[in-house]
């Protein structure tokens, strides 16, 4: 599967019930009905790239075009035809080979059920953890940074 560029018609994909800035943004079970859904802004400026797969988006942000690195976040609709593993694989392939980046990283929240095997299979490893980094469910929870490097 390959990602395609974002168009204005894809705007509905940018709002959903996943954690903000999450590397693998899957819909969170038990989202409080009164809580605002997470929204991603449309791309603006050269530090942002937004791509789309069926039912999901991949956002490359804080892109450092000199050091060739970017933070990745994704969001997937609950009924999307793209499985999370394929989405991550396409995100890594697009970042490394089409944007020609050397490093990709992103936030992972252990408090939310995230399939870490999908992250490992896509080439990410856990690099650091930051306590109290995200406000979730009435308390500050720990977040981890997972990163992938292109070896060439």
């Amino acid at each position, binding site marked *: 599967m390959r990602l395609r560029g974002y168009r204005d018609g894809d705007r509905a994909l940018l709002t959903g019930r996943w954690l*903000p*800035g999450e590397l693998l943004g899957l819909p969170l079970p038990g989202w409080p009905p009164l809580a605002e859904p997470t929204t991603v802004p449309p791309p603006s400026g050269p530090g942002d790239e937004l791509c789309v797969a069926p039912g999901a988006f991949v956002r490359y942000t*804080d892109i*450092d075009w*000199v*050091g*060739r*690195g970017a933070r990745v976040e994704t969001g997937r609709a609950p009924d999307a035809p793209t499985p999370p593993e394929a989405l991550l694989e396409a995100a890594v392939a697009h970042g490394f080979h089409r944007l020609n980046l*050397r*490093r990709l*990283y992103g936030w992972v929240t252990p408090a939310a059920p995230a399939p870490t095997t999908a992250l490992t299979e896509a080439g990410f490893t*856990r*690099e*650091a*953890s*930051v*306590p*109290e*980094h*995200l*406000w979730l469910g009435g308390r*500050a929870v720990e977040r981890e*940074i997972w*990163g992938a*490097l292109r070896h060439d």
Partner: protein
Amino acid sequence: MTDLIPLDPASAAAGLREAGEGARGFLGVDPVTENDALLTRRLAALDAQVFRAGDTLVGAAPNPHQPRQAYVASTSADEAALRALLGFLVTYRRATSYVALVERGAAATEALRRCGFAERGALRDHRHRSGAPVDVLVWFGKAAETCPS
């Protein structure tokens, strides 16, 4: 107690440029490869505040996902300057924890260690400096006491 002098965006960019090598990676900006206009824009995008404490520049930016946490940075190993910044964040920003991303071997590491920060991991080849990728260490500190009010 070291006094903090808040800097406006233009003098913050000029001060970081003067600090030179020590300011590389200060809240993620790099005054060696970025010009003043870009520095100002990037600091504004982070909602960062930069202060002068003696010869040292210290800065803080809020964590957008957790308002009680702040990213902090310093250009030197001066412990008193960093302590003054942490005290300011507790009193005026009600911060309860801090994160610092510093390159391996940076001068600020010593100040962070003395202020009770702990290393939480290393981001591999996270930044590019002088032709080679360098690791960035993640340091985490907890506020000793919270805002009394």
